[in-house]
């Protein structure tokens, strides 16, 4: 054996021992094997079903494409035109404003209402269980069913609204046919449908508040309001932050309930939300490119919100 070969051999075996040492250090308890075995399938599924579609819709959003045959054959590159059109479209502005309205109504009416109810029926008793069930009932209904029920309620000829107008001898009123009212009517349904859900989150939080803290405060002479604002609310802050997060994301995704309530976004599209807008103008009218552009805008809004909320609001509570 030549000396060069010996040196190479030594280097090789040295490398091998180094690898062994590295493996020994990093694969304690089979951690690395687990990673190598279990990550690829999950990553593959995630990439195929989540990342790839998102990336694809990003690509589609620059095309005029009806979605019937391959993009390469029937798509037409239009650059930023889809985005330009979205940003100039008054119906889209309305949809964004409506979505914002859901957030505002959630924060200003729905969540405070849920909190008030939660505070009053959080303690365990059989009558409270009954109330909890009653308040939670609307949430159990499927969204589409709730929408259909409220369509009947809002009917100006035969519905509850008709009964009220007749009782007071007023002219028939058709909330869903009125440009100014259609979306407000939907907001009522939103509050009715989801307050019970947030109430349940708060009740779960309130029940975990230690009783001795409350008792100690009471002994120190704290009033009921002081107990609520100084003890209970700060202690269930994580639950509140979570429910705010849910209601904002819920508003951004709001879709199923609006569909049976108003046809194609209501009068002049005045009751569109971002997602019903996407559905009507992207899917119903087979404009996959345009719909994808709306989806990209929506995705960005969701991602930016989720990122900042996680980073600046949720994170603080865990520290």
């Amino acid at each position: 054996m030549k000396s060069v070969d010996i040196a190479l051999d030594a280097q090789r075996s040295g490398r091998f021992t180094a690898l062994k040492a590295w493996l020994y250090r990093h694969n304690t308890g089979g951690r690395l094997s687990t990673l190598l075995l279990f990550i690829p399938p999950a990553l593959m599924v995630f990439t195929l079903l989540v990342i790839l579609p998102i990336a694809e819709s990003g690509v589609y959003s620059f095309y005029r494409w009806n979605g019937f045959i391959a993009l390469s054959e029937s798509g037409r590159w239009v650059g930023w035109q889809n985005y330009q059109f979205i940003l100039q479209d008054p119906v889209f502005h309305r949809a964004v404003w409506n979505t914002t309205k859901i957030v505002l109504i959630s924060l200003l009416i729905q969540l405070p209402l849920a909190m008030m109810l939660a505070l009053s029926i959080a303690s365990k008793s059989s009558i409270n269980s009954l109330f909890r069930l009653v308040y939670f009932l609307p949430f159990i209904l499927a969204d589409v069913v709730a929408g259909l029920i409220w369509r009947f309620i809002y009917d100006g000829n035969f519905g509850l609204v008709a009964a009220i107008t007749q009782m007071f001898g007023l002219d028939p009123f058709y909330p869903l046919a009125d440009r100014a009212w259609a979306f407000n009517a939907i907001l009522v349904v939103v509050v009715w449908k989801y307050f019970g859900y947030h109430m349940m989150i708060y009740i779960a939080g309130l029940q975990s508040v230690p009783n001795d803290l409350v008792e100690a405060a009471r002994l120190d002479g704290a009033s009921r309001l002081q107990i609520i604002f100084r003890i209970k609310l700060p202690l269930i802050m994580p639950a509140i932050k979570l429910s705010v997060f849910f209601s904002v994301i819920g508003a951004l995704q709001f879709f199923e309930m609006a569909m049976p309530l108003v046809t194609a976004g209501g009068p002049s599209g005045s009751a569109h939300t971002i997602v019903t807008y996407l559905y009507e103008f992207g899917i119903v009218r087979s404009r996959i490119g345009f719909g994808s552009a709306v989806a990209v805008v929506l995705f960005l809004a969701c991602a930016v919100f989720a990122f900042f909320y996680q980073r600046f609001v949720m994170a603080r509570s865990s520290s």
Partner: protein
Amino acid sequence: MLKLKHLLVSTCAGALLAISSAQLVAQETVTVLHNQQDQFIRDTWDEIRRDFEAQNPNIKVQLDFMDDDAMKARLPTLLQSNAKPHLYWSFGGGDFRVRAESGLLADITDKADGLRAKIGEGAMSAFEVNGRLYGAPYRLAQVGFWYNKSLFEQAGVRSEDIETWDDFLDVVTTLKNAGITPIAAGGAERWPLHFYWTYLAMRIGGQELFDSILADEARFDNEYYIRAGQELQRLADLEPFQAGYRGTVYNEAAGVFGNERAAIHLMGEWDIGVQTSESESGEGVSGDNLGYFNFPMVEGGLGDPSATLGGVDGWAFTSGNGTDAAVSWLEFFLAPEQQRKLAAAGIIIPVANGAAEAVEDPHMQQIAENIANSSWHQVFWDQALGADVGGVINDISAELFAGEITPEQAVRRVQQAWDFR
């Protein structure tokens, strides 16, 4: 338990029988998909299917049905899958053209001599794209004014006096003054409103305008289309519709008419059935009480007042499925004898040569005559332009009625969508 056993045995026996018979005769199956909901019509079709199978023992026809929305939603993916039917129900028009040009349909031009011999050229041309044939028509439809004769009498107006658009507006005013809601409209769905704008544009601009728009030789923002919007708004100013019409879907509007709560409904002849079934009494505006008049001419308009707006709908062959068996089924199904049978039952206004005489219902007869005498049968404009631009036309018709947009802005918005199609 006994029943279950029985069922199992009979299913097995049936399966065996099916397998053995399949081995005896090489059977070919033709699958057909339609959105037909009416049981009576389905049964009538089924009779025709049995007759066909009796004459063609080696072809089996399978009629499948879906409801309209489900079919609309599933079709785009279905057409690209292996589970697609041989034939499916389709309008001629924008979507049909796109699908044909996308290669989703089968070209049957070379097998169509039998079909062409039985069906008129005009209706057939609705299923031609760039000179090639991808389907065949089944029936005709026309939109016109249906009215309630007793309500007209009550207000002291006569449909015979309506010759021009101005006359029509006068009748609407008189009805309104008599405390009768003049017109029922399904404003929430919008397409019922586009009939007004399109008919006005047809009467004012004429066939040449429509043909040159489709050929990209004319634009929507022209004086004719703008005037159509102005005339529409003259009607809108009279507030002719039932209260809350913007939240009313088509079926509910048919109910308003069927319950005699409005005097007029601008709709296709299918409304005869729908307003009946949607009415509380189940009778609707029936028999002699139901009247019909054509969309009136507009003074100074270029359009021929005999021109009709309506539909031609029929069957499209999916790609790879323009088989001889499928064609021969359609030849049989669309043959004058079958069409006459369907026409006599009041189910369709037929497309087959000579079958129109079999129509017995006087209202259907009138529609068949209108189409036969019309110099130009325009396919539903929102269908002809495709889902995309058609949707815009519908939206804007509704906004014109609500007075939220001027006629000038309206045509500009449509043109913008048309340019970007």
